[in-house]
């Protein structure tokens, strides 16, 4: 199984604060990699670097075997690298359908069209319908986003990302603030989407991560403590000391 993404030796400082130090790991094709660690461990910073929103001070990224450090966030997206954000980032004034269509049109290469390309636009619309139908959302799609519940918004948030047909999907705490049932439905949508999609999942809920992920990387104070299958991570003494233990104590 080849690696979709290789992160090698990435470091990032903000002033005197070392957000990331020499972070190295890879994401394999089709796998779901969990990324856990306490608050401030650098998980979101790492996402920002992978997706090009931030530049690393040192180290590099390879995506599909190719160095991508010079690519803008938009170019990385066009190569199938898609992320979500910690808080829900939907378009509140638009309808559900329009929210998802925003991504579907971009995927179809007609995101900035003004006239023409009717066939591709139609295909994008169809894709939106299909995504809404498959999601199990009991919504027609004509509702304004701001009228939806938080859980539904997070699901639409995910559907927006899926409409881009990602090769690598980076999910930043998609289940935060959701009830157990909603969180599971959301993960189910991810898993059923496409077996070839690799997923990196940040989540606070240990059960979810250990249940849903093929491998897990543990980040603490900007460093990778351990990376491996759930069993390996569970057995790792340093993880236990730094993270799991602390959780267990609290």
């Amino acid at each position: 199984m080849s690696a979709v993404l290789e992160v090698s030796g990435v470091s990032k400082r903000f002033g005197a604060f070392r957000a990331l130090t020499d972070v190295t790991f890879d994401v394999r094709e089709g796998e779901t990699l969990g990324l856990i660690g306490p608050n401030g461990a650098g998980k979101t910073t790492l996402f920002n670097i992978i997706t090009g929103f931030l530049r690393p001070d040192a180290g590099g990224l390879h995506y599909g075997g190719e160095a991508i450090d010079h690519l803008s966030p938009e170019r990385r997206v066009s190569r199938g690298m898609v992320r979500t954000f910690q808080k829900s980032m939907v378009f509140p004034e638009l309808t559900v359908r329009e929210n998802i269509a925003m991504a579907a049109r971009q995927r179809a290469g007609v995101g900035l069209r003004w006239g023409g390309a009717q066939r591709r636009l139609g295909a994008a619309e169809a894709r939106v319908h299909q995504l809404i139908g498959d999601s199990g959302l009991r919504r027609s799609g004509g509702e304004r986003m701001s009228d939806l519940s938080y859980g539904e918004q997070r699901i639409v948030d995910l559907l927006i990302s899926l409409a881009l047909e990602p090769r690598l999907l980076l999910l930043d705490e998609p289940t935060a603030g959701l009830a157990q049932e909603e969180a599971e439905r959301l993960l189910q949508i991810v898993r059923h989407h496409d077996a070839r999609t690799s997923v990196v999942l940040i989540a606070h809920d240990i059960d979810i991560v250990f249940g849903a992920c093929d491998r897990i990387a543990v980040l603490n104070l900007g460093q990778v403590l351990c990376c491996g299958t759930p069993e390996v991570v569970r057995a790792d003494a340093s993880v236990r000391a730094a993270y799991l233990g602390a959780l267990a104590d609290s």
Partner: protein
Amino acid sequence: MGYAIVQVLNALSFSALLLLTALGLSVVLSLMNFINLAHGSFYLLGSYIAVFWFASGAPWWLAFPVAFLATALAGALLERFPFRGFYARTHLMQVLLTYGLSVVFADLMRWGFGAQILSPELPEPLQGVVFLLDMPFPVYRLFLIGVGFFLAGILWVLLDRTLWGAVVRASVADRGMVETLGIDTRRVLSAVLVLSAGLGGVSGALGAGMLAAYPGLDEEVLILALVTVVVGGLGTFRGTVLSALVVGFALTFSKVWFPEFANVVAFSAMAVLLLLRPAGLVAPRLRQV
């Protein structure tokens, strides 16, 4: 040599004036994230007060505290309604509300003070001149330089170096947290706005000797202040001071070297500056996501 020194002093005095006009605007923007385009009106009101005070024969230096208090009072009234309801609104709505108010105030002041250009008779001690290597430089401008940077210093200490300043900043950053400490954040925010309005008035009183007072000055001053604050980078006090110097020197030396094209040169310089540093000279670090 004397020529160069005096031109530098000219630039410094204009920078001081810019700094004075921009301080109040910068304070509300940096501490409360509130854009007050009615700031020019506070300035002009302060200028009118100074003109009438100097003419009244009362002790001249009292004009400045009086201008401060009068405009602070106006600020306090406006704070209750309608500013307070707009602190949490978008910048666009704040811009629209306060710009609309400035249009109203402009016409009210024209109504009250007339359309004539009024100019204060400067008090005796400020009328002098010093000669630097045979080149004249007015004492009043030295006074402006001194007061401008002195006021900036006081504000810096007050807001950056005292507990009160910390409370203000904390009230903006995390309102709930400060309120659990038993501090009424609404009053803190009111106090900042009142301070800012007072600063507008006192700068108007100080600047009246240079810019005079007439309908339309409010808008001219507002633009100068806004450019200064924005070039400095929104929401940083250091940036405003730096930017007042940069803009002041740019405007002054473009007048020295290219008097005919002074505005084009200065505007272009500022536009290029904003292009190179899209978040201003001193950009606050903000986490985006």
